[in-house]
């Protein structure tokens, strides 16, 4: 079955969504991510949605679910790269993604994750 790849980078997980997601793929990603967080004791998840042309209520709910599930598993989630037109539409649709941390791009998203959860020095000495 088709899957969105999850990359492991030290204590964090990186996901870049590069396909026009159908609903089952979104649910699969949710399941896979919670599995990986628990398996690898990840402390943060970064989700890059810069190539997504829309975020509808289903994808929005998936992002909120991932953030909530990750938090229960003691990990932080940052969603990065949302296009301006997508942000305008999402708010008008009625979703503010409350509870989901966001950053403008991958770089500031990683900085945010390190600020929130990271222990850069201990990772370097491992």
């Amino acid at each position, binding site marked *: 079955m088709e899957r969105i790849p999850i990359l492991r980078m030290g204590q964090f997980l990186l996901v870049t969504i590069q396909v*026009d*997601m*159908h*609903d*089952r793929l979104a649910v699969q990603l949710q399941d896979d991510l919670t599995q990986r967080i628990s398996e690898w004791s990840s402390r943060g998840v970064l989700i890059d949605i810069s190539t997504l*042309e*829309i*975020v*509808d*209520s*289903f994808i*929005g*709910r998936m992002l909120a679910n991932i953030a909530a599930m990750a938090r229960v598993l003691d990990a932080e989630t940052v969603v990065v790269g949302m*296009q*301006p*037109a*997508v942000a*305008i*539409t*999402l708010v*008008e*649709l*009625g*979703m503010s993604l409350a509870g989901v941390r966001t950053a403008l791009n991958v770089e500031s998203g990683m900085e945010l994750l390190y600020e929130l959860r990271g222990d850069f020095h201990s990772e370097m000495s491992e």
Partner: protein
Amino acid sequence: MKSGRQETVPIGNSADVVLARQKVRQWAIEMKFTLVDQTKLVTAASELARNALEHGKGGQMIIEQVENSAKNGLKLVFEDRGPGIKDVEAALRDGFTTGGGMGLGLGGSKRLVNDFEIQSEAGKGTRVTVVRWK
């Protein structure tokens, strides 16, 4: 409202919802809608196509170019063969859901378009018609 060319897209599974989004995007680009308007149209189409699939057991979307005396618009008609909507007013309220969703599908997509109309008949199905004008 004058009608122009049109195209029908079947909605039978979740891959069809993706196809419906792509078709609406393609038409909106051809009609030179702004990026924000394209995004609103495609997002509304995604919500309504999913509704037709999940609550209406599938159906079809008809895309149509329309015009009135002043401007061009893109009209989308979603028809399903589901049980119909008992209380249309309630279904349009944010947060109202009979499925597992957020209840933003109908009310939310209404905010993303200019014209919005629901016709629903118990046991026969539901037809949602939306237009976004340029």
